[in-house]
């Protein structure tokens, strides 16, 4: 946020977060603007500025001549204090105008733990939390991002949500707003009704009545008007080569989390790991062509001057023309001192050839995610990699002189036993042994393996969406057990805080009855719960208890397959039948081939898409 008072900026940490004035920021003449957008990222500037989605939507909205979209980030707690002390409302980054006066406030929901910060943003802006308490004078508050696939816990605080990819749908939404304002038919109620009825991918929670059964499960979601869809189908960009691409970039002056070019190679994922929400909701796979990507990368380099290009996608090595793309890029990146980085590499695709390409200028670390310790459990989650893949991959790294390696696992997966946990320790040991058996290793240096274990969280729109999360006691026991199994000093064991995962699980599958708890949490000053230093588990539990919420109902219960789910009102393209089928396959330890090998009939092909692996839908 842009604060004009220099004394306040001089009294807070990292004032560069608030001072704005970046090269590439968009300033427009207010006199020709018909709709002002405040696009909020409910976390710090450094994190928000690194988000590719925000970057795209900022550009897409601002390419409308009469729309001005500005950015908003959550001020850090020291700044929040100053704002309260001096009665300064939350302002937009570029103009410094209070966002309360804007037409539309958009908030991207990237992870459940940002919900409290989301409410804090509304509070700091002076916007009433509950949508029903906001009259015509307040902006329309719209949410989006991955959590919008089940935004029911925060549904009461939003006027509407954009479901799926927002490049087109947010523009249509804004155009409708301008149209109704201009022809005098605008009221908030009528606008939201028309948006829900006429624009694909707009979900207006207040237009659905929710009823509950006696056992606490949901009875039904009923639209209150006939012309509002029973289920809101997500929007996608069908042809990624033609999708809006932001060729101008706002250049942060202070260091951000991802200070590099992020080149989006494709959307979706061919894999279908059964715990992974992104792998399901971002379907279908839609690739860009290497020629287009190469041009876009050049354009981004000229616009930014960054010295690193990160090829970003859910699983970059699954890009069917990766070799062609990296060859094209390397033709000019080397001369310009640019290094390539490939995050999210799968062990089965990490080859020497690939490694040589990404380490030509700078070197990074080896990171792999086997996710589970035993082959049995990896089959259950459909990870489709085996131990030999991992050992081959680490050896490629060791050949090239690497000595350390990070392995990511998940704990508490459905059907997990203590033998599966043993597998984690054994796999780490096998990597250490592989190092010593590798004749090309860096002589005289000891290897180090970091085993990082997160807690399984059942997420909506995954085959595991009905599963129970392990109880806190079980998690703690399992963590202790695994710790006792890892005795080698060359193996470092870190685990995620199970308490955070527990709250995340509650919110991930939550419904509208959690709203009072979130409002109470906001009242009690919760903010930045994604930050360990601010997360207070006991306080969370107390909030739930004070609101009379049986929180384990959401997290630790096996949900019935026939239950109405809070997110059934959203259609992400993948059918429930497919998810059920996949769940069954999980229990019979049967893997499912990737989209590239064979279509498994998830149903998403009804959305169409160019350069996808889906069979064309038969009419």
């Amino acid at each position, binding site marked *: 946020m842009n604060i004009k008072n*220099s004394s306040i900026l001089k009294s807070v940490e990292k*004032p*560069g977060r608030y*001072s704005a004035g970046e090269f590439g920021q968009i300033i427009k003449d207010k006199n020709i603007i018909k709709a002002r957008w405040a696009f909020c990222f409910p976390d710090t500037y450094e994190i928000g500025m690194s988000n590719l989605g925000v970057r795209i939507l900022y550009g897409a909205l601002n390419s409308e001549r009469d729309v001005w979209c500005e950015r908003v980030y959550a001020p850090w707690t020291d700044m929040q204090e100053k704002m309260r002390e001096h009665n300064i409302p939350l302002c937009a980054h570029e103009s410094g105008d209070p966002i309360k006066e804007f037409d539309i406030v958009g908030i991207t929901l990237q992870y459940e733990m940002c919900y409290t910060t989301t409410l804090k943003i509304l509070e700091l802006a002076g916007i009433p939390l509950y949508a029903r308490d906001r009259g015509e004078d307040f902006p329309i508050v719209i949410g989006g991002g991955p959590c919008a696939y089940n935004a029911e816990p925060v549904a009461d605080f939003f006027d509407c949500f954009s479901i799926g990819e927002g490049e087109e749908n947010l523009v249509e939404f804004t155009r409708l707003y301008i149209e109704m304002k201009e022809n005098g038919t605008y009221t908030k109620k009528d606008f939201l009704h028309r948006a829900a009825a006429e624009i694909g991918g707009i979900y207006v929670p207040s237009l659905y009545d929710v009823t509950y059964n006696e056992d606490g499960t949901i009875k039904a979601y009923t639209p209150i008007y006939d012309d509002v869809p029973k289920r809101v189908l997500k929007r996608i960009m069908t042809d990624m080569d033609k999708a809006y691409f932001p060729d101008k970039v706002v*250049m942060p*002056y202070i260091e951000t989390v991802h200070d590099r070019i992020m080149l989006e190679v494709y959307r979706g994922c061919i894999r279908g790991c059964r715990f992974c929400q992104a792998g399901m909701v971002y379907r279908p796979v839609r690739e860009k062509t290497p020629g287009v990507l190469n041009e876009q990368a050049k354009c981004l380099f000229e*616009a930014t001057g*960054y*010295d690193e290009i990160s090829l970003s996608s859910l699983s970059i090595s699954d890009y069917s023309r990766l070799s062609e793309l990296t060859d094209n890029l390397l033709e000019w990146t080397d001369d310009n001192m640019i290094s390539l980085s490939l995050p999210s590499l799968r062990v089965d695709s990490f080859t020497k050839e690939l490694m040589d390409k990404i380490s030509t200028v700078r070197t990074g670390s080896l990171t792999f995610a086997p996710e589970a310790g035993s082959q049995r459990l990896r089959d259950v989650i459909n990870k489709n990699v085996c131990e030999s893949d991992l050992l081959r991959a680490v050896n490629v790294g060791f050949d090239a002189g690497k000595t350390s390696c990070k392995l990511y696992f998940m704990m508490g997966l459905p059907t997990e036993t203590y033998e599966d946990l043993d597998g984690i320790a054994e796999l780490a040991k096998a990597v250490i042994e592989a190092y010593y058996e590798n004749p090309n290793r860096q002589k005289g240096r000891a290897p180090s393996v970091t085993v990082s274990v997160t807690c399984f969280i059942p997420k909506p729109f995954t085959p595991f969406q009905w599963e129970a999360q392990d109880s806190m006691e079980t998690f703690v026991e399992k963590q202790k057990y695994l710790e006792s199994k890892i005795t080698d000093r060359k193996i470092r064991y870190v685990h995620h805080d199970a308490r955070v995962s527990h709250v995340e699980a509650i919110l991930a599958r939550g419904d509208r009855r959690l709203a009072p708890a979130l409002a109470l949490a906001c009242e009690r000053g919760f903010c930045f719960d994604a930050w360990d230093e601010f997360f207070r588990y006991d306080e969370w539990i107390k909030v739930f208890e004070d609101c009379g919420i049986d929180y384990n109902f959401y997290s630790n219960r096996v949900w019935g397959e026939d239950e109405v789910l809070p997110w059934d009102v959203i259609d992400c393209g993948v059918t429930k039948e497919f998810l059920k089928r996949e769940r069954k396959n999980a229990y019979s330890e049967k893997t499912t081939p990737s989209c590239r090998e064979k279509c498994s009939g998830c149903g998403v092909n009804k959305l169409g898409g160019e350069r996808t692996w889906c069979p064309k839908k038969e009419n």
Partner: protein
Amino acid sequence: MIEAPKFIRFKFRKVGNLQFISHLDLQKAMAKVLVRAKAPLWYSKGFNPHAKLIFALPLSVGAQSECEYLDVRVERAIPPLELMEHINNELTDELRFVDAYYPETALEDIYWAEYDFSIKTTGADEKLAREVEKLLTAEQVIILKKAKDKYKKIFFKEIDIAPYVRDVSVVFDGEIIKINAKLSASINQTHPHINPENIVTMLKDKLGILSGHVTQEQYDIIRTRIYFEDGKTDFR
């Protein structure tokens, strides 16, 4: 064959919002700006090639400047002013290059920096201005300087900066106390470098000014000129 000059010297200003960007962040941002401007940067050889940028005097967060100096190593000759134009296309007004040339002096020759302080504080009057002047022109001007001991623990030590302050003038313009002074400035440790923020801190401590409401009271620091050792000849 004439050997290409190795460095181009730029003078730039860093004002307004950009005063809140730290020196380290500025260095990183500037490297990207030069790449965008297609400057023929010289890169170090080796595993991790990097360009060579030498900033003359670090500017503390919250201080503005009209006269920052930056030496950039180039791998071939290029008209400096032409390159400056390209660079300015990649910048906003608050960070703008104003001069470029092949340097004939060393950044180490910098000896004095001139600053404008403007202090808006309650109860400011002619009398307070004279008190400020007295403090800054006294035989001893004691400031507390942040230092680190060998365990990297921060402590404050008292130092007398009287020899490192010159040409002080203080005026009260009816609302704001304006100080103009030259402070010893140095790129290395050959002579002391005085951070202008220390002057404000001393005035706060000694006179109790700038302790009121932040929306009413504020101060600005602007570095306006840089001099050679005589304190009169502009550095170039």
